């Protein structure tokens, strides 16, 4: 510690205050630039793709396996009891299934006859694994392990099971970011399947965190034909979402203050709390 021995270093030191000002300016500039352009997208995405994604992919795999294992252990007893019940149900369902198969054949024949081959089972899909989540609690978005080179592009629709999860908002070479429909800034144009009335499904943080519902509005239903339990699917007038993908079921309906439209809540078809694998539809909606 003696000042004689210690070599006086001629290191260039920027005072913290100036550094703060310079970096703040940089941040503001970046915000302005990235608000309307995607100037940094390319290089940034490549960097993230090569540095962070491999690690995240590994963690997601391990984490998924551990979570699965703990869930398995917790539910083992439950499962054993239910197994018996289900076995009985399987028998009943097998019979029912046979009947339905026959009807399915008939339906397929009729479909080809009417060229109504448009349900979403026909869309080109690719499976992807969820590898990272948002760092904050304000929005619902996550990262998946497939990207541009797997045929995914911005605005590709994302599903889990049979329900709509959201859409891709940005892609890198081997990963892409998905914004969920429950995210507060998300809006989806949808249709009530039974009555073909259009409505807007608005992601809403309050209803999602309080009881797992999504809010909807702009439902024009003068004759009160829409009832709770009705299926809500993506509408054909949406410019980002392919038509006919299941979003959820109507839970409650209220008349809006303007007395013209109705709003309410719907139960999503997808369990958003623990998404592990999703299906990405690589086809894009053609709006031209």
């Amino acid at each position: 510690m003696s000042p004689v021995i210690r070599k006086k270093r001629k290191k260039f030191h920027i005072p913290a205050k100036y550094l703060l000002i310079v970096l703040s300016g940089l941040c503001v500039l970046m915000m302005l630039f990235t608000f309307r352009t995607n100037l940094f997208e390319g290089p940034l995405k490549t960097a993230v793709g090569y540095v962070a994604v491999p690690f995240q992919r590994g963690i997601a795999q391990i984490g998924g396996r551990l979570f699965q294992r703990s869930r398995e252990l917790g539910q083992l007893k439950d499962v054993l009891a239910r197994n018996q019940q289900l076995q009985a149900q399987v028998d009943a369902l097998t019979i029912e299934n046979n009947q339905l198969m026959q009807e399915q054949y008939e339906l397929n024949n009729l479909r080809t006859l009417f060229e109504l081959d448009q349900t979403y089972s026909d869309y080109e899909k690719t499976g992807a694994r969820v590898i990272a989540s948002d760092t904050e609690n304000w929005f619902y978005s996550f990262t998946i392990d497939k990207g541009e080179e797997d045929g995914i592009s911005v605005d590709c629709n994302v599903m889990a099971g049979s329900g709509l999860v959201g859409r891709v908002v940005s892609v890198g070479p081997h990963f892409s970011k998905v914004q969920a429909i429950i995210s507060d800034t998300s809006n989806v144009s949808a249709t009530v399947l039974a009555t073909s009335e259009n409505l807007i499904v608005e992601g809403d943080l309050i209803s999602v965190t309080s009881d797992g519902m999504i809010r909807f509005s702009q439902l024009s239903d003068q004759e009160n034909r829409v009832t709770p339990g009705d299926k809500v699917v993506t509408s054909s007038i949406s410019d980002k979402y392919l038509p006919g993908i299941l979003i959820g079921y109507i839970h409650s309906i209220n008349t809006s203050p303007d007395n013209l439209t109705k709003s309410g809540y719907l139960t999503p078809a997808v369990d958003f709390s623990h998404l592990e694998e999703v299906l990405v539809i690589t086809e894009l909606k053609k709006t031209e």
Partner: protein
Amino acid sequence: MKKAIVMTLLIFLCFLLQTGVFQWISFGGIMPNLLLILTASFGFMCGEKTGLLTGFACGFLADIYSAYGAGTGTGDLIGFYALLYMLIGYYNGKFTRLFYPEDLKLPLALIAASDVSLNLVCYCVMFLLRARLRAGYYFLHIILPEAVYTLIIAFLAYPLFLAVVKRQNRAERGGNETFD
């Protein structure tokens, strides 16, 4: 130089934990904010400059992975969290003189205050400006749970960060180097 490498690794590690692991331990949909703990604790342990640089790096990573701004323009909005985290690191650095490693009260209080103020700003900018007016709900259901959960994680994480800093100080022998 060695310090910079250690910091980079630490930030990267925390980032991976935050995005990859914490979704598995999220409680009622709320994740603790490890990047904030890192930023705040290096702020008050090592001073304004280290704090703001750490904050900038953490915020930048948070920016890349957040969906804010995804619907507005063509790309993501980058720089928002970087600015916020940097300010948090900087202002935590102001408390270096009051900081004693043995005392756990000040660090935890600072981390909690940082988390609440970060989320308050987030609410004001990202929700209030879009006419989401139920501030009380957001405070009780998002901000407060996150602050509490972050504090619990800080109990575990802060001693580790302290150990890293102490080790670095010992390695540098001088001891006053990190507190510039």
